[in-house]
């Protein structure tokens, strides 16, 4: 995107730089920056089982037990895995109507989800319904722009969480969509919606500059992009700084590759979203460097079918 990385490296090798660093790299005392493997889902919407074989477009796809098997396999191959969800865990199959989201949360806990944000449909059982399921979660929910102070969730949802992965500091925060007119007030009650651009910038700066996070990730349920100026992942990316990656949801967008946008400092922001219903498991493998070369992003999106 910014630099033709391969060409740069090959030039370095030709001039001998590559060779000398190669020797340095073999010294036993040298620290190597860890690699990070981010797995993510969004809008799973209570799809516990795969879509039924009824001739529908998604027949046979998805299913929590298969997703779990894939996650397990990846964990056996990768050391530094983060498993994240961008909201709308609830609603869409009778499992939610019957059990209020209990199974969804138990499954995510068992799969080892690290963190999730809250989607509009996660209020469908009322804020009390969501609160009731929290004991089943061994992971946290984050939101930087829902103020829960006057609700039952007061003190239960932080704005962000910082993960330490083999010395890498990864800051992850959440952003949610405007609830008014989307969710009945009697469900979200006194939850206060705050401007996602202001709150997002505030927390991202804090994570990047004060907490010195190596990577800042936003779990967003704002939606990928809209025709009007409504706040979205694209608007967020372009009007803030210090966010490296936005893992989105809400619009059920199947992205064939991440969208790369420039933030207010001219740096690249990676936006990704993986449809809905647990049909896809998103995976971003990230390598780091200490030199500011600008993000060099070589994205390929290979759909693994087996």
């Amino acid at each position, binding site marked *: 995107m910014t630099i033709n990385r391969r060409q740069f490296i090959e030039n370095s090798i030709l001039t001998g730089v590559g060779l000398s*660093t190669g020797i340095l790299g073999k010294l036993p005392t040298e620290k190597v920056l860890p690699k990070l493997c981010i797995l993510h889902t969004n809008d799973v919407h209570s799809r516990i089982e795969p879509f039924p074989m009824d001739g529908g477009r998604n027949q046979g796809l998805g299913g929590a*037990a298969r997703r*779990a*098997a894939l996650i397990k396999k990846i964990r056996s191959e990768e050391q530094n895995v983060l498993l994240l969800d961008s909201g709308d865990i609830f609603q869409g199959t009778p499992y939610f109507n*019957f059990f209020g989201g209990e*199974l969804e949360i138990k499954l995510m806990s068992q799969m080892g989800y690290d963190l999730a944000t809250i989607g509009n449909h996660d209020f469908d059982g009322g804020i009390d319904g969501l609160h009731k399921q929290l004991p089943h979660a061994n992971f946290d929910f984050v939101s930087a722009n829902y103020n829960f102070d006057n609700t039952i969730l007061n003190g239960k949802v932080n704005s962000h969480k910082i993960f330490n992965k083999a010395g890498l500091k990864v800051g992850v925060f959440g952003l949610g969509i405007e609830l008014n007119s989307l969710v009945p007030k009697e469900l979200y009650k006194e939850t206060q919606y705050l401007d996602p651009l202001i709150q997002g910038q505030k927390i991202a700066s804090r994570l990047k500059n004060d907490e010195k996070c190596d990577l800042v990730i936003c779990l967003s349920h704002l939606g990928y992009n809209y025709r009007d100026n409504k706040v979205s992942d694209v608007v967020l990316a372009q009007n803030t700084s210090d966010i490296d990656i936005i893992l989105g949801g809400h619009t059920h967008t199947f992205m064939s590759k991440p969208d790369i946008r420039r933030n207010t400092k001219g740096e690249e922001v990676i936006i990704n979203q993986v449809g809905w219903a647990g049909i896809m498991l998103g995976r*971003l493998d990230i*390598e780091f460097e200490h030199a*500011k070369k600008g993000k060099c992003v070589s994205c390929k999106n290979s759909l693994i079918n087996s």
Partner: protein
Amino acid sequence: MMKRHVIFLSILSISIWSCSSKTYIADLDVNTSEISQDYQEDAEIASLIEPYKKEVTAQMVEIIGTLDKKLTKRRPNSNLGNWFADALKDESSRLYKKQIDFAVQNYGGIRIPSVSAGEITVGKIFELMPFDNKLLILECDGATVKKLTDRIAEKGGWPISAGLTFTIVDEHSEDVKINGEAIDMSATYIAAIPDYIANGGDNCEFLLDMKRYDTEKYVRDIVIEHLRREYKEGETQMADPSKRIAIKK
């Protein structure tokens, strides 16, 4: 090719380790997987699901009706929309113990494009209407009904029951008739409407002031009860292709 690329990058980063404290993304590799049938199931997760699945399945497979023709969802009218709205009107008349003039269901609330002919299960109705919306009975003056039909016209047509007809002209409603008669702006009409719309959803905030009676039942359960009752009585659900909303071009 990619692998070689990655190795070179790690070598490069080592050389700069001591020069800078900040970290940047050097390489991003995206490998999104489609969870297809080729994946094996994780046994632990499958066994966690099992008891829940049993309970859901037992209730979902119950046959509660038969359908003579395939129902398909379309705008501005469709046999699926007609059937659904008629079921709400019929069943809510029983609940309210008074004649309901018409029922309305927002288009987006019906979540599947079609229902096949033949047996209808509880599970199918859950797919059709997964949301836990309750049905309300509203007493609306004619002027408010007109606002509602204008909104429905603007949205391209929603499922409406027998008893209400109108014509869409340039995104608003004209020739609104209730029970075959031109709408009287000052008369009171009784309408069955999901709480989502009655509480102002889909820009229907003008319904908020209307006098209301809460059936305290989910829209879905009302349709299920309707089907069960008629099935017991030996009735088949009939597709009704009537055009309740006309479009004037």
